[in-house]
């Protein structure tokens, strides 16, 4: 067991699941919600030349998906450190990673 205690292991997993379900709820809302179930209602609203529902289905949901993964990566790295279960760290491989280190500290 790499956690300090059984309690830590449980808490880590709970926080992980909470983050996962929150992000999945957004995932569901933009794609299945805005892009499919509510598409007709949203199509009444216009975004330039796009009807909003159509835009969500063919563009918007993809951008949101990308943002969700970015948020997940950042939050999970933070969580791993909080419970001290991150991987042993060697020297940073690239600039992006060292910046990310600074950000998460």
């Amino acid at each position, binding site marked *: 067991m790499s956690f300090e205690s059984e309690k830590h292991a449980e808490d880590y997993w709970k926080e992980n699941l909470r983050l996962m379900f929150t992000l999945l709820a957004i995932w569901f809302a933009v794609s299945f919600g805005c892009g499919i179930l509510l598409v007709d209602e949203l199509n009444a609203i216009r975004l330039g030349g796009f009807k909003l529902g159509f835009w969500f289905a063919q563009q918007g949901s993809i951008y949101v998906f990308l943002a969700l*993964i970015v948020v997940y990566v950042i939050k999970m790295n933070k969580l791993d450190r909080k419970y001290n279960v991150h991987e042993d760290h060697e020297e940073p491989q690239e600039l992006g990673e060292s910046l990310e280190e600074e950000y998460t500290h």
Partner: protein
Amino acid sequence: MDIQTLTFIIVGLTFALYIGIAIWARAGSTRDFYVASGGVNPVANGMATAADWMSAASFISMAGLISFMGYDGAVYLMGWTGGYVLLALCLAPYLRKFGKFTVPAFIGDRYYSNTARTVAVICAVFVCFTYVAGQMRGVGVVFSRFLEVDITAGVIIGMGIVFFYAVLGGMKGITYTQVAQYCVLICAYLVPAIFISIMMTGHVIPQLGFGAELNDGSGTYLLDKLDGLSTELGFAEYTSGTKSTIDVFFITAALMVGTAGLPHVIVRFFTVPKVRDARKSAGWALLFIALLYTTAPAIATFARVNMIDTINGPDAQGTAYEEAPSWISNWESTGLISWEDKNGDGRMFYSGDERNEMDIDRDIMVLANPEIADLPAWVIALVAAGGVAAALSTSAGLLLVISTSISHDLLKRNLMPHISDRQELRYARIASAVAIGIAGYLGINPPGFVAQVVAFAFGLAASSFFPAIILGIFSKRMNKEGAIAGMVSGITFTAAYIIYFKFINPGANTPDNWWFGISPEGIGTLGMLLNFAVAIAVARFTADAPRDVQAMVADIRFPKGAGAASAH
């Protein structure tokens, strides 16, 4: 220089590049061959995943399908990207921590059963062959049009190239070739899109262009013009589809979950050094994929407007066949477009009602798009190279899964546990050579058109692997009885539904006969739910997973201590 010479040069150069990389990245051990020694940088891995992922179906067929389906095309756009969220959040990091070579290895070890391993091998091979047949067909289409060789010769050339780098380099060769192939295919996709966007709307970015006003001074939005044209010609309005909401919902879900369950995608996350690299890599992969996937609907819109304008003429009375642009006769010779002068006026006319005289295959929309928009010859040659790159990169990834499933999971772990590393490597190479042969045969005698065949692979993956892996990670007590029963019932149900409506009784393939209005493309979602239900029910009445397996599940739930992927 004419288009054909240019195409030969550009496609030839890319082939030379792939072969060069293959020689540089030869595999020396099974670890090289299966997971590139687990040393791939997450950004490079993201690019390789994107190339692995974006097949001939994404490159050649998808924009064409959207172009003909309008709003309904969103099932592919959301379905084939949304799965990466599931991969990043629910699968990739845990499977990387688990640290084995293949998906059947996870299933076999997590469910402490060689039966489960064998069921997983069969599912993996079945899914991959369904998928790879479409790729070889894509290579054939590109070759037959641009190099004017027949489809059979095209498929054989494609097989030769894949054989060379997949058999020689395994995962290592494939990964670095895929990075190169990604660069080729994304340039080939974006360059014509940007050109056409500027021509039609004045916007450099196609994602903005297709929601903008037309360049012709009329002040109408492009999408409004297309909606108008579509209704006039007897089609459904472009921005609202024809499929029922429940069907769109189920198809999208099947494609998303299928994406997260496809063995050749999952295995890519075994090649990075760390758990956090696996998470990050999923993000990079989606970024690279999104570049193409957000451009595709723009291309679809541009191509549709252009095509209708060219065929029907600016006054919508039809263009005289003698004055038809050269792309029409170029594509007529491949049999993918045809004109029948029904009213005898010598003019072509395209519509969704009885006035229609054109028969246009959806697969040509991306490939013919630069010709339709009158772009320079080198752009057309580049698109040909991109189409080949997309098909080759995906075939290679799939063939690798087939060969590792057989040499590692079936032979080494099941039938011949005492073979040495060298012998195993030789079997892996033999298995991939045989698989290439079968894939080639399926490419020459294709079971249907590209995207449709591929779409079924997703249903099968969604209904077999996804639930077994998810339950394996998120439920400590899930046991082998539940997992096996779930996988078998899920894939059998889904395959039976698809085979019935597509092969046994295709006449009955109408919404009235579908269960709950779900088409064969979307049935994988129901198969997945069935898999979950059966697995959970069976597990309730049988003994929990043993203690050591439960401890292993607890261990994969956090990153610390992830070693390199290993065989045992």
